[in-house]
């Protein structure tokens, strides 16, 4: 059904998108918590940095990644020299780019959920002997589960669709960094390859749709688990 070209791009995209999303999740939760609850100087700056990948064209982000994480970049060079890790031109680099582009979306979704958590429940947990982290894990985190599900689906979808930063940072290396959008771009730039391009576009939408439907199911279960469902039915 799928051509080898499509299969390769699909599997690579899933790998890159999945790892990007999972890798961004914990930092996204932490940063959202900081932004939603913390009070510290330069909070606005952190907020701005987190949002930057949304505002700045992806190509610029890719270029900045190249400068910073490239083999001669201030971060990339030590990584390479000390640990032998190269990120540029590898699928790991594609995941980094996708993760960074997905990051602001993920933070926003989680933060929105966090800000709607009833803090009186957290207080109740505190009186029952739960410390700050304990409250977070036993109360806050379960309560924001719907936001986390949304953040994962948004992040994954964005990572799947990521093109500009990826092609700029890790280029378009078949089998290594040629994810679906890059493959699609290649086809779109070729006269007469419209049909193939269309197939690939459809394939990305189908993949996203499957992820989406899965996330809906999970989200519904989560809402039920945190008792939101029942409140609605009552």
């Amino acid at each position, binding site marked *: 059904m799928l051509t080898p070209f499509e299969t390769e791009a699909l599997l690579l995209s899933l790998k890159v998108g999945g790892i990007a999303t999972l890798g961004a999740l914990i930092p996204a939760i932490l940063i959202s918590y900081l932004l939603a609850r913390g009070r510290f100087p330069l909070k606005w700056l952190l907020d701005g940095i987190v949002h930057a990948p949304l505002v700045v064209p992806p190509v610029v982000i890719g270029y900045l990644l190249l400068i910073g994480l490239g083999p001669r970049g201030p971060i990339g060079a030590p990584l390479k020299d000390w640990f032998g890790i190269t990120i540029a031109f590898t699928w790991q680099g594609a995941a980094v780019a996708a993760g960074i582009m997905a990051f602001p979306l993920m933070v926003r979704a989680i933060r929105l959920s966090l800000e709607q958590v009833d803090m*009186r*429940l957290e*207080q*109740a*947990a*505190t*009186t*029952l*002997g*739960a*410390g700050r982290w*304990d*409250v977070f894990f*036993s*109360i806050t985190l*379960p*309560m924001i*589960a719907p936001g986390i599900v949304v953040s994962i689906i948004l992040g994954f979808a964005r990572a799947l669709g990521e093109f500009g930063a990826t092609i700029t940072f890790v280029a378009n290396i078949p089998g290594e960094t040629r994810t679906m959008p890059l493959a699609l771009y290649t086809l779109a730039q070729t006269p007469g390859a419209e049909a193939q391009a269309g197939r690939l576009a459809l394939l990305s939408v189908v993949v996203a749709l499957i992820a989406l439907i899965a996330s809906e199911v999970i989200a519904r279960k989560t809402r039920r*688990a*945190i*008792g*939101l*469902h*029942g*409140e609605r039915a*009552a």
Partner: protein
Amino acid sequence: MISIDVKTRLGAFTLDAQIETGADSHTLALYGRSGCGKTSLVNTVAGLLRPDQGRIVIGQDVLLDSQAGIEIPAQKRRIGYVFQEGRLFPHLNVHNNLIYGQRRNGEGPISLSQAVELLDLAPLLARKPYALSGGERQRVAIGRALLANPRLLLMDEPLASLDSHRKGEILPFIARLRDEIGVPILYVSHAMEEIAQFADQVALMEAGRVVAVDTVERLTARLDLHPLTGRYEAGAFLSARITEKNAADGLMRLTLTGGAKLLVPMADRPLGTEMKLRIRARDVSIALQEPRDISILNRLPGTVIDIRPDTDGPMAEVLIDVGVPVWSRITKLSASTLSLSPGKPVWALIKSVAIDRTAPGRPKPD
């Protein structure tokens, strides 16, 4: 011993409360009109509301001393707080709500199965809070607090939407908890009856201030506080000792401090136990001679100490010395028909059923 001195503002409302209970007072009730600041005061004790300044000491524990810079954080205070609005964790089922505090503070004197039985929660354990009725939620909230192995119980109208049957089961249990394990309790209630049943002292609040702290007995006896305590509640609280366990068919005999004797329904307490009784003014009638062939068993001779007619309405309150002072509430018409006046010898007629037999009392260590 509970000692509170806090000052803080909430919008236009100022809380400025000083409470100092006796050294052997383990249960302090907060009583007062809606909006007088009871919940706010409890929140300062819980550590959820930081007062602008203040000092809070419960027993030996200094929870807060803003001058000395001491502030135990809420999660270290080992509190069992029954919130006015429940605050069950919506994502946990009843079982996990119940053991939330227990898991963190260790198992306390009450076991899960005890709490489940007392509060009749067995069929609810697997349910989420959204699938509970109002009263069921309240019971779970009580259970959660009791199971948190607390060194201090804060209860903000915990029984408000429970039926009297259940109240009658839960309240004595909490009282026993206090007596056997010595957990101090801060108890908010609008029902003086509930308070009378187990609070040592009552702090009467009005508009953010504590206007009086005293025993329930003395507080409800103070006529000047009637606008706050409610006239209906007037009565006398007495201490008595069980002196005969099986005086008659299901009855036992108590001896009051002054030596007078009463017949009341039997309680499951050993001979010699000190009990707390409440005799409501409206349950005491007055006769000039001892009536014969009457169903009222407790007929105590005494003398009128004082007569206080209401400023409005047809009623008057009469204080009678029957060895201890007892209030009686009768019509002004009766008072004049019987020509009552201070010093006049009378009989106080007390229906035995009117005696608060649920009062759990406390076995004195001596």
